[in-house]
């Protein structure tokens, strides 16, 4: 049987960081784990993939080039979850296109009350988990995760991993996951890319 066309493909991508171009491709349900020291261009790679920075080379979703998408349509399918989430309204609910299922919330230790909370009240760990949830409700095809568990304790880290793995299992989707934690990368059972 012929190999399927990759879901997400990157050809000779050069980011603002400079250096050699990136080439990789991902098939449905796969994870690419990215590691490397600070300043090695991990976040800039994710920003280029989300088309938030100027870049060279080509990126394809289902064989269709980035340039053929309207920018906002591309970013709704290729969603970047930044290391530090930013919030522009005062109440949590105003940042969600739709509210996630109650079960998903309780898996992460939230009740539906959380949507009425003022953003100021959130701890950094809560911000990080809710920042991920507001991205997941968009049902992205490619999740770009910039250290999604950096502010979390071990218990919450495992919950997030489980949630993301379940998402990837149940959707035609892939994730590109920046992680400093080698044990985590092992748990994700992923392809690896190390930046230097």
């Amino acid at each position, binding site marked *: 049987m012929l190999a399927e066309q990759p879901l997400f493909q990157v050809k000779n991508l050069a980011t603002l960081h400079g250096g050699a171009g990136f080439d990789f491709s991902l098939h449905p349900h796969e994870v690419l784990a990215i590691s490397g020291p600070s300043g090695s261009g991990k976040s800039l790679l994710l920003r280029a993939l989300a088309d938030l920075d100027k870049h060279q080379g080509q990126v394809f979703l289902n064989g269709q080039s980035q340039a053929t998408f309207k*920018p*906002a349509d591309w*970013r*709704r399918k290729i*969603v970047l979850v930044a290391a530090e*989430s930013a919030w*522009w309204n005062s109440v949590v609910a105003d*940042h969600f296109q739709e509210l996630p299922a109650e079960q998903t919330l309780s898996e992460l230790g939230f009740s539906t009350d959380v949507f009425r909370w003022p953003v100021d009240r959130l701890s950094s760990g809560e911000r990080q988990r809710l920042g991920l949830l507001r*991205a997941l409700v968009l049902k992205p095809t490619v999740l770009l995760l910039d250290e999604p568990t950096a502010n979390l304790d071990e218990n919450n880290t495992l919950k997030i991993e489980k949630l993301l793995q379940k998402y990837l299992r149940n959707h035609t989707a892939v994730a590109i996951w920046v992680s400093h934690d080698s044990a985590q990368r092992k748990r994700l059972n992923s392809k690896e890319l190390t930046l230097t």
Partner: protein
Amino acid sequence: MNIISLSAFDLGLAAMLVILLSVLTWWLKIGNTRSLLIAGLRTAVQLLLLGHVLRLVFSAGQWYWVAAIMAVMLLVAGYEVNARQHRPFSGWWGYGMGTLSMFASSFSILLVALLLLVQPKPWYQAQYAIPLLGMLLGNSMTGIALSLDRLTESAWKQRKEIEARLMLGHDWNDAISNIRIEALRSGLMPIINAMAAAGIVSLPGMMTGQILAGTSPIEASKYQILIMFLITAASGLGSVIAVQAGARRLFDDRERLTLSRLKSRD
């Protein structure tokens, strides 16, 4: 007209007051004695010069003189808008955005005023056209400068919030909507305050002038109301155009937030 003409002695005496004030600032070591004196001198020279230029233009009555003076007024106002920005757009955009939005708003409102409302004969008569434009430009200049400054400053400070919205698939227009509203609000603030305070807290300058020149207070107040509405329209329209153009300019063709298009005056 029963206006009392001012003599050189009158002006000299008034100038003495400014000179006395400058002595006071020197004695108190406030440190702006020099700029106070220079500004006073500029006022005297610029206004006398303007008086003479306007006298010539009024008596010549040619449309091209009126047009030339208007062009100078517009270009200076455009320069002022740009000079008041903390983070202006770089290149020609900085100057062009303010100037063009002022041109679009002030001149369209001026045409409404001359052709439909005041209707002098001929319609471009300098005695009406130039003071009207001056008031429209002066006020829309303030509104546009404030709203553009607020737009670029807030975009700079809230870049993370803007990008967070882009990352969630909002288009550029949505991603900057909060900031655009803030910017427009701050551009409209001075004129709303001026309208609310008119006649109670302040006696507006034009009405004061007309009353001093012997116009009946009723006529003067009607003119002032007309002018207030016109400058509100010009100021608001100009701010809307400038903020819309400025907001778009903050994003490139792929709707990426492009703050490198601003320069900082830190």
